[in-house]
């Protein structure tokens, strides 16, 4: 199977190609440059593999949560390609990709990640992930958008991963207390892990058609209606 993946929900912009059992990747930290970079990245991946767009079998994308605009760039790109080629799409959580990136590089006995990314407006995107028997990041409970001081975690010891751990380290440490082993804030989600989770999700039957490949924002209330403004 040949699967193309993109991840643009944070300041990192990346594309990856799963082909012949391996993964090729382009990755750049490039705030505001995603629209310029993403298609050339995809193009160069296919060129390296000697493939044409029509050779692709499936797609995966980091569907968020993350920057609303960033998530929509990935969604738009993937919807356009999926519809153009009539191939299926596996939506992959950006928090899962973040956790998976950590698991890929760490074989320590600690198998739980507290994935947390800054969501602005005093909140964070939060999800607890556990490494399953095959090494894939698996969500425990639900992903939420929440103030850092109110996060909910199961009775498991884990590692904090993601940008919220630099912005809200005090609140998170206080809240998690001895459930927290240590944290590493510098990790970013990447298309490589989206591809890995995408291939896995595809095998599990999680692929959908282009029009069902949708962003996950978590924050759903973004404006007040006229009625709501009047009643304040």
């Amino acid at each position, binding site marked *: 199977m040949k699967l193309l993946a993109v991840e643009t929900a944070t300041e990192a912009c990346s594309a990856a190609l799963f082909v012949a059992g391996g993964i090729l990747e382009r990755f750049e930290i490039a705030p505001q440059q995603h*629209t*310029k970079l*993403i*298609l*050339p990245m*995809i*193009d160069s991946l296919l060129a390296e593999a000697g493939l*044409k*767009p*029509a050779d692709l079998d499936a797609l995966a994308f980091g569907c968020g949560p993350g920057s*609303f*605009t960033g998530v*929509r*760039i990935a*969604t*738009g*790109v*993937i*919807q*356009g*390609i999926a*519809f*153009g*080629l*009539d191939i299926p799409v596996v939506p992959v959580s950006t928090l899962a990709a973040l956790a998976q990136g950590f698991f890929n590089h760490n074989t320590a006995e600690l198998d739980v990640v507290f994935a947390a990314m800054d969501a602005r407006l005093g909140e964070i995107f939060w999800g607890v992930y556990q490494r399953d028997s095959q090494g894939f990041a698996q969500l425990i409970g639900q992903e939420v958008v929440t103030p850092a001081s109110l996060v909910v975690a199961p009775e498991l010891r884990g590692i904090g991963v993601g940008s919220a751990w630099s912005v809200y380290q005090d609140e998170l440490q206080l809240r998690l207390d001895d459930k927290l082993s240590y944290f590493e804030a510098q990790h970013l989600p990447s298309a490589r892990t989206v591809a890995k989770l995408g291939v896995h999700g595809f095998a599990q039957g999680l692929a959908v058609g*282009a*029009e069902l490949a*949708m*962003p996950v*924002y978590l924050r759903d209330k*973004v*404006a*007040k*209606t*006229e*009625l709501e403004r009047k009643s304040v």
Partner: protein
Amino acid sequence: MYVLGIETSCDETAVAIFHSNKGLVHHLLYSQIDMHSEYGGVVPELASRDHIRKLIPLVKQLLQESGLVNADLGGIAYTAGPGLMGALLVGAATARSMAWALQIPAVAVHHMEGHLLAPMLEDKPPQFPFLALLISGGHTLLVHVNGIGQYKLLGESLDDAVGEAFDKTAKMLGLGYPGGPKLSALAELGTEKIRFPRPMTDRPGLDFSFSGLKTFAMNTINASPKTEQDKADIAASFQAAIADTLSIKCRRALRQTGLNRLVVAGGVSANTQIRAALTLMAAGENADIFFPRAQFCTDNGAMIAYAGCQRLIAGQIIEGQAITARPRWPMMELSAID
């Protein structure tokens, strides 16, 4: 060549297919107006969210109803600006990557060039050169048009656009969003009882200013007993002042340029009284006047597919693989095609 056109610059998701020889094949539009009206105006983030939900289903339906498949397409045109950044990005990212997947050219279209060329979709299209009056939600432009991309700006609004003046005045009259068509309907029930100013008509030049009319409307509304009839009369008076002002400036521009064709486009050109006033003025000047059909005055995919098709035929694939969205993009920067 079949060209798919995609428009997502503001609060309508619109798509169309134009064929270089056969003309317009099909067009569809989904309006977000009901959603935004609850908020009293367009909420950019909600607009972007809705575009990404609706765009692909709309393209799918468009192709199906046209009896076409992806492989029939020779190019994809999308509105790259001006407009709301997030909304533009949805159309741009989807269009550009769909074109990449099909290995066909994509072309970034200027929204106002789309409006300007909309009358080309009618049975008797105007020939170049002509004078164009573009009146929409964000723009009021008088342009000397020698050909596609050959534009000379003659005049513009120094403050509010005409459509904006309509919408703001409608809001003051307690009409919902978007107010232009509602104010116009209310004006039908009234007469021009109050003499509104005709801004900037008493001095030379082709620029406009409409923010004063809005203030005048506010004062007039406050001073009136606010009965339904008062409101209708104020609406009629306001609309008459706009129609008159536009006519005076267009007459001046026709005489100044020696042009004998006038094209009127953009959302406000759907207004019947403005159409009537401009038609009367043009007749007096021995000029021919051209409008788009009402549904192509406001945002639509057909005008984008048409404009993109012209640029594609001319071999203007003006971009590499960047997904282009330009919220601000002066129309005079466009390149000419012959």
